[in-house]
């Protein structure tokens, strides 16, 4: 810590940072544009000017750009200085010379960094009387709207898109006051991370095209903290609703996980919530019958909730045997409730045999250690990486984005030698000359990370595993070797081994996408061998779904086993929770399974093929309409909250199960009546899940005696929303399960991190208000990041190696069975979002995506 003087008052700041970041962290409202905590400083906009004085006698001082100035012990600056203030106002005036002043029709209106800075700098009137220059806009695909006239040329878009995310089809064109940000020609943005432009752009140039279809101002959105359900990484999001439709997803900062960013599937995949395929009422085959077959074939009819529940209670009591099939895309709470309903022995994870085995293996490895399970932030710090088998951009996108940052570490190293600080972005890039830490990728096909890989290697899944075993053996001869490696592969293994060995924070990444146990074991062996050699190795596994890890930890039997018990005629009733079995097993087998069941009860939110074949269907809430916990790939349990109360009978899966239990007169029903109830019951029953109870405040938590409002103070139209029905305002729905309120009443104070449902601070209406929620700008949220890791490896465990499975050799494996994942199109729920569907159809077929 060093002392700097701001307007003659001493302040303690961390050394090594730039003055802008320091001032913002101290709480000063200093305007800026081109700087961003994840992109660092370039000094282009000149908005962050302050005065610097040589010493306490210097009265004149000189204007400096705070973002380009390192903090130094004893330095004296002024933020309030009249000349600096006038200059900052002048900069804003320049930026507004050509700005269209079209805030009323701008999607950014009300959450616009430019608006905030305009007010902050005191630019309140237009002095110019001249014509503005105008630009043509481009069609950039289904996600991003382009309105170039609003551009203030801060260069953040291209710096994010190109320098941070590795995209190469967005750029800046022309010069002087004609500079233009766009593509060489119209067309969908190629980067899988294009959506972040929406938040990176400080004005309304790049806005969310999906939001535009059903636009609402920021202050008219009811929002809640959420977790992305579209892959296994658990990125934190903020979901926003109005009039019963989900309007958009924004990033929710998590220092350890997604930082400032999301992938496009996570941002634009939300519209399954609004889909016409939603199940909105209880449905049943008519007439409800105790002997009805499982086949719906489309003649499901709406039924009263009470009669559906009554019927299910009857079915359960007269059944020969009931099994429950859970789901890795449903919350821990819903799965646990189902498990309680049917009993642990009759609970199935809903994952296919192979999937389930892979996850159990991963969890086993996780528990035994010794390698760390890295957060995405840890990934960003790695300095030598090997990826076995995964096309991460498509299977774990933010992990891929994090790797792009990791390899850049080498540039920081080079810059440091020249005393160029990390925040000096252009300086670092120039000193670094694109140098990268080594990244090795072994995969069946080209991947979208090949451009940053030091070397890539293609082979069949088992060959990849053998390569992995060989690397581990190179690192520690006591690890088993894969035999029969050709010379080239052996050499490659040696190269990777020596590179990992020489690293401070080596990282091994693998995952489940190739359905190959050996690869997972090989990755573990590498990490174990590194640990045995005294390295601080991290081992990261990509898992397929938002709660794969949770279900893996919860346990239960797999889907194939469910088919067997049904074949054995031991059961006649199956309750399927948020799961489309047709996506997990051979269609014929699923069909036979459903056919044999006397009673098929499906609880889900979308009319899947499985649901359409049920006897009874209960409408579940999506992530946006229910609360629960998801466990990400690193075993971090994180809570999501309902954003709004859907009309009718839609409710969380676990609530349906509670209702069923109650209807069946089961006494334990009370234990799972509330969210806190389910988590408590779950914690008791499953010790590994015990921390889940502590990941977020309980329902009776209050900030200064009040709940945390989901609606901002300015939320408008509340009293008129239902005016066509009744002029008297309804009482807002109660949320007994959480400490959030479905209203604007409550505490406007910053809530604990897990309850942040929007960023706002006086004078800061844009997403940049986030600065005020961090302990230091760019750092942890106040009160630390939400969520808790369930498994920490045993760091001092004796290294145990997997042996190479001799029964398998590459000749016997059919490489063509390895599935190919696409970020757009492979995942179930996002497939119901029109924008994702459109993007999937415009996928560039020449390029590996």
């Amino acid at each position: 810590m060093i002392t700097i003087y701001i307007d003659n008052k001493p302040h303690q700041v961390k050394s090594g940072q730039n003055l802008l970041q320091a001032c913002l962290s101290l709480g000063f409202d200093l305007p800026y544009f081109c700087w961003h905590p994840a992109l660092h400083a370039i000094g282009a906009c000149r908005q962050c000017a302050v005065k610097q004085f040589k010493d306490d006698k210097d009265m004149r001082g000189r204007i400096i750009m705070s973002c380009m100035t390192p903090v130094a012990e004893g330095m004296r600056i002024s933020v309030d200085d009249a000349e600096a203030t006038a200059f900052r106002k002048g900069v804003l005036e320049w930026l507004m010379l050509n700005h269209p002043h079209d805030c009323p029709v701008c999607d950014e209106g009300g959450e616009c960094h430019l608006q905030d800075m305009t007010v902050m700098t005191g630019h309140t009137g237009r002095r110019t009387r001249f014509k503005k220059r105008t630009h043509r806009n481009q069609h950039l695909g289904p996600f991003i709207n382009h309105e170039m006239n609003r551009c203030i040329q801060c260069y953040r878009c291209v710096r994010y898109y190109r320098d941070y995310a590795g995209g190469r089809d967005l750029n800046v064109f022309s010069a002087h006051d004609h500079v233009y940000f766009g593509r060489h020609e119209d067309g969908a943005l190629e980067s899988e991370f294009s959506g972040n432009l929406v938040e990176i752009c400080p004005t309304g140039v790049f806005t969310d095209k999906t939001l535009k279809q059903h636009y609402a101002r920021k202050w008219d959105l009811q929002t809640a903290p959420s977790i992305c359900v579209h892959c296994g990484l658990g990125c934190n999001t903020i979901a926003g609703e109005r009039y019963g439709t989900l309007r958009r997803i924004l990033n929710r900062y998590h220092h350890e996980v997604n930082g400032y960013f999301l992938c496009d599937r996570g941002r634009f995949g939300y519209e399954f919530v609004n889909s016409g395929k939603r199940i909105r009422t209880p449905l049943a085959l008519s007439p409800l019958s105790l002997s009805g077959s499982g086949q719906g074939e489309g003649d499901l009819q709406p039924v009263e909730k009470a009669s559906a529940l009554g019927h299910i209670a009857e079915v359960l009591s007269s059944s020969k045997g009931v099994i429950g099939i859970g789901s890795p895309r449903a919350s821990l709470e819903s799965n646990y409730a189902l498990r309680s309903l049917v009993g642990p022995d009759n609970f199935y994870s809903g994952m296919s045999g192979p999937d389930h085995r892979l996850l159990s293996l991963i969890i086993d490895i996780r528990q035994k250690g010794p390698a760390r399970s890295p957060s995405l932030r840890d990934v960003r710090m790695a300095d030598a990486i090997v990826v076995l088998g995964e096309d991460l951009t498509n299977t774990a996108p933010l992990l891929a984005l994090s790797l792009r940052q990791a390899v850049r570490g080498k540039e920081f190293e080079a810059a440091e030698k020249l005393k160029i600080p990390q925040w000096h972005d252009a300086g670092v890039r120039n000193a670094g000359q694109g140098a990268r830490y080594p990244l090795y990728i072994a995969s069946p096909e080209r991947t979208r990370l090949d451009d940053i890989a030091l070397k890539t290697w293609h082979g069949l899944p088992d060959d990849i595993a053998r390569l992995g075993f060989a690397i581990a053996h190179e690192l520690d001869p006591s690890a088993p070797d894969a035999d029969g490696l050709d010379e080239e592969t052996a050499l490659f293994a040696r190269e990777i081994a020596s590179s990992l060995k020489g690293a401070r924070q080596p990282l091994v990444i693998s995952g489940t996408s190739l359905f190959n146990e050996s690869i997972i074991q090989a990755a573990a062996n590498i990490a174990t061998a590194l640990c045995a050699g005294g390295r601080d190795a991290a081992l990261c596994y990509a898992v397929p779904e938002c709660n794969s890890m949770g279900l893996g930890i919860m346990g239960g039997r797999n889907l194939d086993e469910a088919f067997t018990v049904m074949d054995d005629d031991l059961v006649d009733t199956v309750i399927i929770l948020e799961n489309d079995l047709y996506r997990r097993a051979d269609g014929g087998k699923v069909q036979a399974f459903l056919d044999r069941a006397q009673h098929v009860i499906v609880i889900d939110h979308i009319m899947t093929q499985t649901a359409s074949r049920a006897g009874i269907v209960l409408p579940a809430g999506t992530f946006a309409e229910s609360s629960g916990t998801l466990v990400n790939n690193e075993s971090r349990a994180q809570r999501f909250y309902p954003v709004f109360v859907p009309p009718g009978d839609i409710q969380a899966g676990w609530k349906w199960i509670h209702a069923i239990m109650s209807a069946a007169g089961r006494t334990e029903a009370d234990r799972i009546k509330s969210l806190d109830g389910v988590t408590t019951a779950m914690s008791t029953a499953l010790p590994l899940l015990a921390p889940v109870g502590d990941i977020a405040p309980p329902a009776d938590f209050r900030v200064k005696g009040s709940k945390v409002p989901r609606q901002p103070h300015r939320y408008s139209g509340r009293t008129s929303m239902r005016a066509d029905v009744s002029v008297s305002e309804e009482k807002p729905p109660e949320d007994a399960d959480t400490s959030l309120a479905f209203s604007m009443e409550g505490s406007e104070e910053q809530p604990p991190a897990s309850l942040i449902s929007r960023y706002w601070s006086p004078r800061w209406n844009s997403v940049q208000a986030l600065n005020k929620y961090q302990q230091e700008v760019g750092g942890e949220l106040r009160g630390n990041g939400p969520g808790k890791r369930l498994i920490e490896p045993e760091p001092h465990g004796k290294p145990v190696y997997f042996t190479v499975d001799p029964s398998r050799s590459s000749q016997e494996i059919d490489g063509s069975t390895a599935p190919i994942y696409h970020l757009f199109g492979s995942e179930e729920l996002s497939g119901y979002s029109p924008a994702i569907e459109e993007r999937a159809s415009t996928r560039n077929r020449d390029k590996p995506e």
Partner: protein
Amino acid sequence: MERPLTQHIRPHAEPLSLAEYEKAGGYRSLRKAFALTPQDIVAMVTASNLRGRGGAGFPTGMKWGLVPAVGSVPQPRYFIVNADEMEPGAFKDRLLLEGDPNQIIEGIIVSAYAVQTEKAFIFLRREYSLAGKRLNKAIAGAYEKNYLGPNILGSGFNLDIRIHSSAGRYICGEETALINALEGKRAVPRAKPPFPLACGLWGRPTIVNNVETVANIHHIVNNGPEWFKALGVGRESGTKIYGVSGRVKSPGAWELPMGTTIGELIEDHGGGMQNGYALRGMVPGGASTDFLLPKHLATPMDFDSVAKAGSRMGTGTVTVLDDRTCPVGFVHNIELFFARESCGWCTPCREGLPWIVKILHAIENGRGEQEDLSILEQQCRFLGPGNTFCAFAPGAVEPLQSVLKYFREDFERHIREKKCPWRTS
């Protein structure tokens, strides 16, 4: 009077061939240089007090001495000759390049040896195609004679020279923007520090010098620093290529002792004002320098004296403003140039200059308002040094701020009379 830089230059004639150049004493300096250590040459150049001729007047020897030692930064080093000369009013480098290309190559070889680089670039503006042809010929000849290439004259020193023909933009003359252009990038400047001396072209130590600066080096090696110092008439060393343009009788560029006064330049060499025209003022060193007035005619044209008079020597090429040219129109033209040539990186320059242009245009066309003048003055302050990303914008407003100071009444008249008093129609 000695004119080392232009001794072989004859107007309207072909430059000396390599053989003629050698016969006239050319390339003598190489053997001399190779007998010295690079440090010796840097010391000689430092002792000579040679100041960079690119505009800023940074002492060349000091610059060379600041190159970080081998081993402390990535290698190799690069040497770049800045031949972008795009400043309105400047045409002195063209004279040297077209007039005596062999001399430039010789200067580069000695300079490159002194700073120990094996690769040199000449960053040449595309319009100077005649210079390009002549330089190429000189380079080819030098390779043939092993003045260039590997192991030059058995010295163990290697050097390659490549000409990059610029695709054109004034900002390319700024050394870090120039480096970006050489790398095939958009020529926006880079933040300093890191300075190119430590981290320039491809992140390597890079020395950028002006054509005229380089042309002096081998003369200093041949004749010694004391000789060089004695060439100047004032406190500064050497000769300088000065120029005069505008409504003078015989515009041109001449090599004269450093410190020749502005008056001598205009009267003795430029032949004085054309008949019927009177001198109202001048920009002493290109369009990016503050105006001076006839009362400044006695000012010696060296870096410090011109600075004291309130302007900059810049390129040393004077442009006169006569009494029949509207100063508003004149400065409008200057600002139009700068607005158009701005790289578009930083806000003040990208947005401020076009606004200035629009205001000046309005005033010039009788649509000015009283408030415009205070806006213009404010813009000049806002675009001052330190406020913008590079020195382009501060240079761009220098003529404007001085015009507002010296010719304010002309602006007032435009606004009052709602027309340009110089326009007849």
